């Protein structure tokens, strides 16, 4: 769920840039080190980024939304760690803004935080917890993908509610944003969880 250009007023868009910045800076630092050690990381990360972009620009059946990033990047988080994945999320979000008009430039900070950092971290945690608990792999993957999606949408609702608390205050505004976007985002999260589980099954099959 991309927040579009112009939607977040000052100072909120600046704040979200500042929140995302340390993750990205640390990610770039880690990336630099990793690429120096193993040069083949760069091309592999690049194709992973392209995959996330293409996956997220596919239209899901019956809904006007699109597959969001947390699951694609969640996979990246398992492979490369959450901070490098944040860098990947940043690049993909910039391309989405200028190629497909999804998202925007001032809202990049907020979107990077919700889709490039918060979501993947949840995916990563759920996946780790699931495998450690010895749960069914597909169920774990489904849960990781769906929860990451849901968490992204919750974070986005928080971001919107903070920017537009109205007269009802943060809690009221959050409830309102969360409720209205739930119409598209909750089914989307479930479908995406199912699809990612299918993909996982597909890959394991080979």
């Amino acid at each position: 769920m991309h927040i579009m250009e112009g939607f977040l007023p000052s100072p909120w868009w600046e704040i979200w840039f500042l929140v995302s910045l340390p993750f990205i800076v640390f990610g770039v630092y880690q990336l630099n080190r990793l690429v120096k050690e193993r040069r083949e990381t760069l091309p592999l990360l690049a194709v992973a980024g392209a995959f996330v972009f293409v996956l997220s620009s596919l239209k899901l059946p019956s809904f006007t939304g699109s597959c969001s990033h947390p699951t694609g990047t969640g996979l990246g988080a398992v492979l490369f760690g959450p901070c490098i994945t944040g860098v990947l999320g940043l690049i993909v979000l910039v391309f989405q803004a200028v190629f497909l008009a999804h998202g925007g430039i001032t809202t990049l900070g907020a979107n990077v935080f919700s889709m490039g950092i918060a979501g993947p971290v949840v995916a990563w945690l759920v996946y780790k917890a699931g495998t450690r608990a010895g749960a069914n792999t597909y169920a774990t993957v489904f849960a990781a993908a769906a929860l990451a999606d849901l968490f992204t949408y919750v974070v986005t609702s928080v971001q919107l509610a903070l920017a537009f608390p109205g007269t009802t205050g943060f809690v009221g505004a959050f409830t309102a944003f969360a409720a209205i976007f739930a119409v598209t985002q909750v089914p989307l999260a479930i479908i995406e969880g199912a699809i990612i589980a299918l993909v996982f099954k597909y890959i394991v099959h080979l």
Partner: protein
Amino acid sequence: MHEMLEDLARGNGLRETAPWLKLLLGVASILLCVSSSGPIAPLLVAASMSAAILLLAKIPARFYARLLLIPVSFAVMGIIVILFVTGSGTVLIEVPGLPLAVTTDGANLAILVLARVFGGMCSLYFIALTTPMTEVFDLLHRLRVPTVLIDLAMLTYRFIFILIDEAGEIYRSQVMRLGYGRFRESVNSLGMLAGALFIRTWESGEALVMAMDARCYDGVLAVPEESQTVSGLSLALALAYLGAVLWVSLTTGGLRIL
């Protein structure tokens, strides 16, 4: 499957203008929109950016009209919430039976946010439709963005176009075999597509590593070079325009429609 704004940017009427000037104009307009406290300045930006896109960059009007529809669903849902959570001011409309009402404050804020989104999106389209991404890489390089970030972005850029073609082809072949019929089959088809694409991605990655090795990769990627010279006149015009918008923004900041 998707029309990429990038493809139109290649043939636009402002292709030869220095990318940094276009980016300066676009980004500054966005900032003016978001920081404007009244709706007039963002609407002025929307109008002038649209004019530049249609008249100077010569983007087909029908295509541009369709672009303007992309943000509508998000904007509508967001605006509805803003309308109802902002409760102060005179009540304009009441929803019978529910504690929901639209007040003047809510309506004014909604109009302001809509204007900002409209102005911001038009400015974003201006950047996207006049400046191919390849020209931005050069600018990022000059702005001392870390090389590893630019390298990663350039490689990702290249492979987006390869994978999107492949995804389109796989999608077509599934449709021809009657995939995406009912809901259940749609989810199944999409899962297969994503899985097949993942395998293709993995193979592309391995091939890319090999291609780079075969060409003596030693950690350097070339950044496409772009001409960066700008005539004094166009720079002056751009600055004059931004100044005018700023003036409008400051003088109309307190203005309220309702």
